[in-house]
């Protein structure tokens, strides 16, 4: 009912805008042109409605229709910080069914290349809320974030499970929110990992790649990480460990517990540090 009411008033509003528009080439104007051979130039023509305002109004109407809200914020000047959000499944070699929300390899990789090359971009904030996904695609993204020459900070929100772990640790500095969780479990063909038929040996090798990457890029030791991965008394139907916020920091996987403001502040610090070093060299 309420939505219908809104719609009615909105369409009335649009009608009014249309009526107010000056009608060029209308009958009255054309008649005056015909009557005088030398038509008098109108000194004060009826001004067109400001185009931007009509555009804004249309946008606002569309936003109310679609999002149930008005325009969110005005554009800010470029900050030099770009962000990549890694949400849902990480999609690599297999296209997932449409009800899965995915972060696609072919979207993220070109963006990372562009960030590396664009001189106006000074830092990257990676925001993770992922349930895992394709191991090779995840490792590829992690390796690219790691080898990016510009400062990077990652923030784990909600969940950073399975292959989300190497991506989280690949940044120069990592944050996790207090309520966010990270699940570490072995790579298998079932569970949270998307599987394609592989032999056990191959899975084991793949697992070693992940473990090596994580231990190289965080304070956690290989022995400890393996122990977390094969822990039997944490998950109901699986082996592995769920780590909530502080646990991930205590075990050395993530650098600090924090939120958005801390992450952006840290990234700004890293950018300033880098700029200073460039001046001295």
């Amino acid at each position, binding site marked *: 009912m309420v939505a219908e009411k809104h719609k009615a008033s909105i369409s009335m509003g649009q009608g009014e805008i249309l009526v107010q528009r000056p009608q060029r080439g209308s009958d009255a104007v054309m008649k005056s042109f015909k009557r005088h051979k030398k038509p008098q130039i109108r000194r004060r023509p009826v001004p067109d409605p400001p185009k931007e305002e009509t555009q*804004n109004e249309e*946008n606002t109407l*569309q*936003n109310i*229709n*679609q*999002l149930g809200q008005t*325009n*969110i*914020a*005005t*554009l*800010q000047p*470029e*900050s030099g*910080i*770009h*962000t*990549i959000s890694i949400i849902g499944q990480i999609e690599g070699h297999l296209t997932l069914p*449409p*009800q899965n929300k995915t972060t696609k390899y072919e*979207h993220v990789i070109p*963006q990372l290349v*562009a*960030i590396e090359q664009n001189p106006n*971009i000074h830092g*990257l904030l990676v925001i993770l809320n992922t349930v895992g996904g394709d191991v090779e695609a995840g490792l590829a993204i992690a390796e690219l974030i790691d080898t990016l020459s510009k400062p990077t900070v990652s923030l784990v929100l909600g969940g950073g499970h399975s292959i989300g772990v190497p991506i989280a640790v690949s940044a120069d500095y990592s944050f996790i929110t207090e309520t966010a969780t990270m699940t570490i479990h072995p790579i298998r063909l079932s569970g949270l990992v998307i599987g394609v038929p592989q032999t056990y040996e191959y899975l084991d090798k793949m697992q070693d790649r992940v473990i090596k990457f994580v231990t190289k890029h965080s304070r956690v030791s290989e022995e400890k990480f393996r122990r977390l991965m094969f822990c039997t008394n944490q998950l109901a139907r699986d082996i592995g460990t769920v780590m909530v916020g502080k646990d991930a920091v205590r075990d050395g996987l993530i650098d600090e517990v924090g939120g958005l403001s801390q992450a952006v502040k840290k990234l700004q610090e890293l950018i300033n540090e880098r700029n200073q070093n460039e001046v001295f060299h």
Partner: protein
Amino acid sequence: MLWTIVPLSLVMEGSETFTPQYKEIKRNNAIIIVEESDHSAAKIVRVISTNPSDYLHPALQPGSIIKLDLTDYQ
């Protein structure tokens, strides 16, 4: 994993028959995923960009209608 008072059967209702036709186009260096409504217009479903200001751009708000041009079909 869903934690909701709405029964799972209601939440997932229609997910098997839901087959939208999405299309990727480029605007302001951002990838925009749109659902084509006809051959000249499409509804924005998702914005993919590293530039945070693209998400605040009034013309790129998800749900709004965007005009397609010939280059979008290349």
